[in-house]
């Protein structure tokens, strides 16, 4: 029987953007408030999974031609490299620093190296979650 998922698909196209925006908010909020790279990554993954649920896998693969295993690798490598950077600069592994920089137009913004670490975590979480879920769903 062919299911009619017009409602799911229509809602998904709207909600995915809301979820992704919230994910971005969580990611940046994590620096001073509850939130962070891990939970942001899970949010992004849930948005993508919603897409996979509402549409078929081939269609999404056309739009998002990533190998999620590689994404996981990139994320882990990025996180590790920020740690190794601290070693190169003679600080304990995983040390982080931050600096307040004055940008024209935007004003003063805090730039922190831990954002790079968190970005790596996010990519790794998205990659790992989708690898697991897609490998379960593949041959059903």
């Amino acid at each position: 029987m062919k299911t009619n998922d017009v409602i799911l698909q229509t809602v998904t196209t709207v909600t995915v953007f809301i979820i992704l925006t919230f994910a971005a908010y969580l990611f940046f909020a994590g620096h001073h408030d509850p939130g962070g790279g891990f939970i942001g990554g899970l949010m992004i993954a849930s948005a993508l999974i919603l897409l996979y649920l509402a549409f078929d896998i081939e269609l999404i693969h056309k739009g998002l031609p990533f190998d999620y295993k590689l994404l996981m690798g990139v994320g882990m490598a990025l996180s590790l490299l920020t740690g190794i950077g601290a070693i190169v600069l003679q600080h304990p592994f995983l040390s982080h620093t931050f600096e307040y920089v004055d940008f024209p137009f935007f004003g003063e913004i805090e730039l922190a190296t831990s954002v790079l670490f968190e970005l790596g975590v996010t990519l790794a979480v998205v990659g790992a979650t989708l690898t697991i879920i897609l490998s379960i769903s593949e041959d059903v």
Partner: protein
Amino acid sequence: MEILMSVLVGILFTAGTYLVLAKSLLRIVLGTAILGHGALLLLLTMAGLKTGAPPLLGMEGITNYVDPLPQALILTAIVINFGTMGFFLVLAYRSYKELGTDDMEELRGTNNE
């Protein structure tokens, strides 16, 4: 609250143990999941259920902070549990397809075929 949670932990462990001892593979997988939840809830309860502000700098006028360590531990443990569960589920599914049974009784045996 702690006592209520302890009872709940007991119930979760009972249910988990019962399911792990079942014959069907899927029940065993679910049993380990419930055992995992029980253990995490126990970790949270044993560290003390307090009400207070999140332990972040720069929050004025708050004296009562929550101990952040158990939460960090549990978050890590949840991630690990999630990974293990995902693997176990895939393994159970693969074994069911390859071995043609999900009955642990039939998976007995020591001989190498």
